């Protein structure tokens, strides 16, 4: 069985803070991590591998330093890595990104299952997975809490409003994974990190995958950012400081005044 896991290197947005004076992002010193949803998807793939002996290829689109997350995936147990890296991809929105990734998948060739995190924590769109599935002409299953496969079909617990569904699906299929609460990503041992150096990572350009240059980058992106602006300010309310006791007392007073307590 062949599984492809799509992963992305993202800034650790839990650590990104905003400069209160300028409203700008403070990115200095913020580490890059493997997108947690993708980390979870990879662990799901590894669980399937341990049961079926499947081969896992990890695929990522990004600048050259994204090799670090491919290496992490290999250290966790993936077999091969592919980095799609090319200036031609700069400025891609989700359509162009999905097209490029799908074209790379076609070059990888064999696959039964594609797993992705439901979204990247820096983009938050959750669009790339389904768009990839379209480009590949395969079924999709989004927001899965868990998946399993015996190489013949996919079984999944898929989230729906107010509950979930148990789904059975034919392969090949692309599934996007949602993270469980309190998810603690696994990290590789030193030995695994060391041995990951022996596993192959290929770096492909747009030409390597035969991508249609009209479908990547800015040209392949139907959306455009027309402007960026700070949110409109409200009129600032009443600011209260003082000792803990004073503030607590004032808080209770306000709750009474606004009729939230009698």
């Amino acid at each position, binding site marked *: 069985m062949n599984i492809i896991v799509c992963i992305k290197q993202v800034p650790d947005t839990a650590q990104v803070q905003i400069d209160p004076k300028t*409203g700008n992002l403070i*990115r200095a010193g913020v580490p890059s991590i493997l997108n947690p949803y993708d980390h979870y998807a990879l662990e799901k793939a590894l669980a399937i591998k341990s049961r079926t002996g499947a081969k896992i290829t990890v695929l990522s689109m990004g600048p050259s330093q994204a090799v670090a997350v491919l290496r992490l995936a290999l250290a966790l147990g993936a077999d091969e890595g592919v980095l799609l890296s090319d200036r031609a991809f700069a*400025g891609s929105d989700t359509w162009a990104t999905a097209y490029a990734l799908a074209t790379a998948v076609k070059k990888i060739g064999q696959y039964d299952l594609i797993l992705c995190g439901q979204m990247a924590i820096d983009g938050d769109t959750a669009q790339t997975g389904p768009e990839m599935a379209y480009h590949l002409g395969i079924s999709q299953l989004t927001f899965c809490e868990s998946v399993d496969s015996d190489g013949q079909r996919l079984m999944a617990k898929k989230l729906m409003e107010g509950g979930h569904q148990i789904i059975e699906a034919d392969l090949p299929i692309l599934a996007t994974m949602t993270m469980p609460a309190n998810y603690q990503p696994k990290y590789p041992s030193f030995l695994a990190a060391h041995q990951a150096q022996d596993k192959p990572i290929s770096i492909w350009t747009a030409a390597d995958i035969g991508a249609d240059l009209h479908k990547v980058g800015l040209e392949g992106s139907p959306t*455009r950012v027309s402007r960026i602006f700070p*949110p409109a300010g409200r009129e600032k*309310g009443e600011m209260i400081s003082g000792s803990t006791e004073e503030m607590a007392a004032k*808080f209770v007073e306000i*709750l009474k005044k606004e009729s939230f307590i009698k």
Partner: protein
Amino acid sequence: MIQVSEKCVGCGKCVSTCPFGALSLVNKKAVPNASCTMCGACVSACPVKALSLPAAGAAKKDLSAYKGVWVFIEILDDGKTQKVRPVGFELLTKGRELADQLGQELCAVVIGQGIVKFLAEISSYGADKIYAVNGPAYREYNTAAYTHAMSTLIQKYNPAAVLFPSTFIGRDLAPRLAAELFAGLTADCTNLSVADGLVISTRPAFGGNILADIKCPDFRPQMATVRPNVFKKSVTRPGQMAKIISEPIGVPAEAGKVRILSKHFDEVTELEKLDEAEIVIAGGRGMKDAAGFAVLDELATELGGAVGASRAAIDMGLQPKEKQIGQSGVTIAAKLYIAAGISGAVQHTVGVEHSDVIIGINKDANAPIFNICKYGFVGDARTILPKVVDGIKKAKGK
């Protein structure tokens, strides 16, 4: 990539503004690298206007034939009741506004089984037309079936814009459709407007304190997903009936590749329904640990409210994802919203700003949360709130 003109003075402001680390200073001039996504954040940050986005592609197709604002209506079926999910009415209300500004029609699309009973109510929210795809094959959502139906309708009737709810179904259907149609899709919009005949989708960008306007000048339809509670609903055409257009569309064979074996609905207590709660208390990074959230639970019990969390607290593992309040979580429109230890980044505030009374507590007097608060307390929520709980108990005579 972003273009840097001679005006660049090497101040480096763009370098720290860039959310992707795509700019650096080389020999006192800004130089972009392959990480540039052309978001344009640096363009507005540059004090000497030395940066610009490259002009969009040449071909301007004639898109005047694309008319109409469509809203995808989702039917809620939890095994007990069947009704239109309220977000559909919210989108119809907003869609009516957009359609009026564009001078075009507002159309609803309803796909399902037994949907005839909903058509009157849908009409009353302002739809001029309703495209109905009715049949047993559509009773349950299926990606292939619904995508085929929507795609057929869109390619036949050429709408200018299609709005979807940002629900599990909407977020499964809209991107698949956008890929097939080569259409621009903007997820989780916090606002929609019209400018120069285009629909402008606004959403917070890049996890930071900025908003982005996204437009799709060259491709149709313009697509957007919107979360519940972002827009208010109002019956704009009471008693009126839209023109119903029934489209019998067959289900493609691919639909059979994904099969629902069983459905399960969670028991949700009233208190836990964040998006409907009248009083919501949320904790952020400043609550630090489970003990901090325990205080919020106590406060919620005393006030009769629900507890949620900011993205940061979720990422720290302090609360499950369902409790996330903000742009990629639940949007609330409560009577009272208390933000404890939350900095107030815009992707959080867009999820709460429709609330009536907002109280914020943060150690940092400059935290952006205070920009939307009616009352702001500069202090440590972890030490203040236990005393507030005591004060409330005393006031209640406990």
